[in-house]
């Protein structure tokens, strides 16, 4: 009888521990990726190809999203500051919101949605076609050969794209504030330099880097572990995007709290 109870109890325990186990596996993959980044031979060709791919699918949507996003923030902040009688600070407030919050998030969402989903689908279909097994059999680590270049590509594109989105978003905000709400260019720029400081840009880029890493790792992890054949790949892509979104907002919250704690606002 004791032989019968063991197998029935184990799956239940397994189900309860499932989230922990998944988290552990994702972390293991993340550590392996970091370690294999420094292992020879470095896959430069694959990195360039992936970089180009991720950039090409995310540049245009990122630019297109960032103009209305910058505008919305400018309009909202503009009307609020008008009510409060602090209209001259509109520029600084909306630029900070765009650079610190909106830009890294837009970048990460687009990289995860456009690049990450493609990476996940690519790795997933390779997995079920046994291509990854074939690679391992040849003594080549798929993590080092395929995942590392992809994660580095999402990180690199995220950082560069973050610059683009910040500029486009700021210009969009400026345009709408000055031309639509009757703000003055001088007040906009002056409040900008009065409130914003260089660390705001740094934290924005650091966020983009970390979000790119998360998007790459989650996409790769779900792609490497599809469940149940070809349909599992579709599910994995879906899950990778959803999980990435959830994680991004949580990590963003944590990073914003830490940043506000350790970097004092300018002028205080």
């Amino acid at each position, binding site marked *: 009888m004791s032989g019968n109870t063991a197998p029935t109890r184990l*799956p239940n325990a397994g189900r309860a521990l499932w989230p922990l186990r998944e988290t552990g596996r994702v972390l293991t993959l993340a550590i392996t990726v970091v370690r294999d980044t420094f292992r020879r031979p470095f896959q430069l060709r694959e990195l360039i190809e992936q970089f180009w791919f991720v950039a090409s699918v995310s540049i245009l949507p990122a630019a297109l999203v960032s103009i209305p996003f910058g505008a919305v923030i400018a309009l909202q902040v503009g009307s609020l500051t008008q009510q409060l009688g602090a209209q001259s600070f509109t520029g600084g407030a909306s630029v900070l919101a765009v650079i610190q919050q909106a830009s890294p998030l837009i970048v990460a969402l687009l990289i995860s949605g456009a690049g990450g989903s493609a990476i996940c689908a690519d790795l997933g279909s390779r997995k079920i076609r046994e*291509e990854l*097994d*074939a690679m391992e*059999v*040849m*003594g080549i680590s798929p993590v080092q050969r395929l995942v590392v270049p992809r994660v580095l590509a999402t990180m690199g594109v995220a950082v560069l794209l973050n610059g683009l989105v910040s500029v486009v978003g700021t210009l969009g905000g400026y345009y709408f504030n000055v031309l639509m709400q009757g703000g003055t260019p001088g007040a906009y720029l002056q409040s900008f330099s009065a409130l914003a400081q260089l660390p705001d840009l740094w934290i924005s880029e650091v966020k983009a880097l970390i979000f790119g890493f998360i998007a790459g790792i989650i996409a790769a992890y779900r792609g490497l572990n599809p469940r149940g054949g070809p349909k599992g790949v579709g599910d994995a892509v879906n899950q990778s995007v959803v999980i990435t979104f959830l994680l991004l907002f949580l990590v963003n919250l944590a990073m914003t709290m830490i940043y506000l704690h350790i970097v004092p606002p300018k002028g205080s």
Partner: protein
Amino acid sequence: MGIEVRVEGLTKSFGSQKIWQDVSLTLPAGEVSVMLGPSGTGKTVFLKSLIGLIRPERGRVMVDGTDMVGGRERDIYRTRKLFGLMFQDGALFGSMSLYDNIAFPLREHTRKSEKEIKKIVMERIGMVGLEGSERKLPGEISGGMRKRAGLARALVLDPQIILCDEPDSGLDPVRTSYISQLLIDLNAQIDATMLIVTHNLDIASTVPDNMGMLYNRNLVAFGPREVLLTSDEPVVAQFLCGSPEGPIGMSEEKDQETLAKERERAQAANGSGGGSGSTQRQRATLAPQLTPSDGLPPRQAVNRHRDRVRGMLGTLPDAARKAVLDADPGLAGAPAAPGGDHDGSTMVLPKAVTAT
């Protein structure tokens, strides 16, 4: 010469489902072995365990001093370069042409110039008969060609151990014979240890030096091919006949009741003098083993196998011993003392399998 693969007490389960347990055998260096078994008995899982793609819970797989189950990751990756694995579906990289696929291991693991790579790749492409298709993508060729391309890729690093996962699946009988001949020719040319996982009886009866069978979570038997081909063990006999009558059922082993009914039917059919009862099926018999094509060197494994069998002649079942001696009367004068130069673990005699 190939490398010996020693499997000790291997047990694998997925969740609570046990795939097989306590599998111990030795693939003798340079010889061709076949692992038989009904569909779904974990033959592919066994193959992947040998190379470390799947990690069994217990046991060891010793290859060249490395344990492919519990060894260090780095050692396993190094030892894998001694292997060539031919996947069931070829497992070619879909985005690369056949040429690039076959050149891939060379480009990754060697510092050869493109010229040298081209020479090796074209030679292997010729070996598997794919001349003229090297610029095609895997999606543009038939399943049989993909298989052969997969084999060519597995061969490109001159492996010491070649594992073939169902080389016959999806091939017509003629192409299957070509593959059989190709495998024997390969063995003659590079003298690698080979394990073929299959349920094709033609391959089983003509290609291997040694044969094993997995059934019902156990290794039923492993030893010189004569041992299985002459065995009267119901599971082995049924499988070699390809008959529905016997302990192997459609999905799993049959239960006692079905078996009893079957026996009654068989007796009734015998009593009425055969008649419309069960059709008599041809059992895979002890066909002569394939020899290398003309112009190739003889297989060195043949002599080693002969010596090994000579050493274990005394321990073979009577039918197997008779078959061995019929095929090779020269062995008769040999000392029949067991334990010559073989160790007992290379053979598992056919045994009845009880449900666990």
